[in-house]
């Protein structure tokens, strides 16, 4: 009798947990479709340059070789990172000069960052144009290493996720990908 009760409770709790995580994934996918539509509309009618509201989609990130893609929203709050790639609001927006930083979960949008290589192309489409970057380096740093957000003279993209990738729970370190804007000359070569 006791064993049956324990068995049923375990099965029930296990089902609830799996359903909960499944629903989260489905909701994230729905948000992505919604953000994509919003971005298409924003590109058709670009705004007058007002700063985006927290949670507003600001672009679509792709790393073609890795198959990474996802909407980028303004802000890095927990609830935003559950459904999109977040832009750190205290760094310049991607269409502004400087070091723009994006963060995402290592078990969802940035899961394949573990396979990133130097010179991989990163593409970020925004209402203010599409920007291409080339990966220059990857780093493993501590959460307190805020120097990765320091300003840069050129347009730079810094991607942040937790490390190690296989860690279960709150990972102790951060995996950083630094990519620099591709010059117009390189862009022509890429397109040809």
């Amino acid at each position: 009798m006791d064993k049956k009760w324990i068995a049923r409770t375990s099965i029930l709790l296990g089902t609830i947990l799996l359903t909960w995580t499944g629903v989260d994934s489905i909701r994230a996918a729905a948000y992505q479709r919604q953000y994509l539509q919003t971005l298409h509309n924003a590109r058709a009618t670009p705004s007058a340059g007002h700063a985006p509201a927290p949670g507003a989609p600001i672009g679509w990130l792709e790393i073609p070789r890795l198959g990474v893609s996802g909407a980028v929203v303004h802000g890095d709050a927990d609830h935003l990172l559950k459904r999109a790639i977040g832009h750190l609001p205290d760094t310049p927006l991607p269409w502004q000069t400087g070091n723009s930083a994006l963060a995402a979960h290592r078990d969802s949008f940035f899961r394949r960052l573990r396979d990133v290589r130097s010179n991989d192309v990163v593409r970020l489409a925004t209402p203010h144009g599409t920007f291409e970057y080339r990966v220059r380096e990857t780093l493993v740093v501590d959460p307190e290493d805020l120097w990765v957000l320091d300003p840069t003279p050129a347009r730079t993209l810094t991607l942040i996720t937790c490390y190690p990738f296989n860690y279960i729970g709150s990972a102790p370190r951060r995996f950083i990908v630094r990519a620099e804007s591709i010059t117009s000359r390189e862009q022509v070569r890429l397109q040809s």
Partner: protein
Amino acid sequence: MLRTLVSACVFAVLAFTGTTAHAQTIDDRTFFTFSQPVTLPGVTLPAGKYLFRTPDATTGRRVVQVLSADGTKSYAMLLSIPAQRFSAPAQPEIRFMETAEGTPAAIKSWWYPGKTVGYEFIYPKEQALTLARTATNSVLTTASAQNDTTEEMKGADLTRVTSSGSEAAVTVEEKPAATALAGTSQEGELASSSIQVAASATATPAPVTTSATLGIAPADDTKQASAGTRRTRLPQTASSAPALMVLGLVMLGVGSMLSRWPRLGM
């Protein structure tokens, strides 16, 4: 009695001027603390404390260097021309130009206390055209879009571009005519001459070792001290989903095993 009084006055004057001379520095170094990102020619700085100075106060187009608060890292070397105001500020002052609502404020000029001649920054053409669209006043830039590096700007013809896109040529003068100030301002504080500043003449930070890499050759980019942003840690990007999923599977497994236990006769 008179001698004592005169001595006291001389002492007071010397003490005052001595104090003033100690506060002023040859390179006009000044701290500014920004609570939000700010835009300068060619760079957007995140919120934080920065050191402004003139590494070489010569005539003509004066260079302004922007560094981290401790002076160890140089973030920008900017060209400026003299600008004059009607009255000297009592404190170091930054003047912003009007920008689109919600976008980082763009710095137009920098003024040192006690001086009516300050520094008006020259913006690269593309950036100036973007700023001018929403600025109330014109933006100082180069006449040609090709002159975007600091070296090219040094000898380039200058112009002021307005929101309508019209341009007016600018003649650089050491003592230009005084103009009324526009835009919002922010005060700074004088910086001590004891701060050792980076000697770098470029805005590119020097390469240093990083904490670790994953076997990919590091680029020239850098490990720098934080510019004093409010953030204290990089964002936490690990969700609880994997742990919950594993736990859910384990519980399902345990439940299934227990429910079959009587039949298995274990």
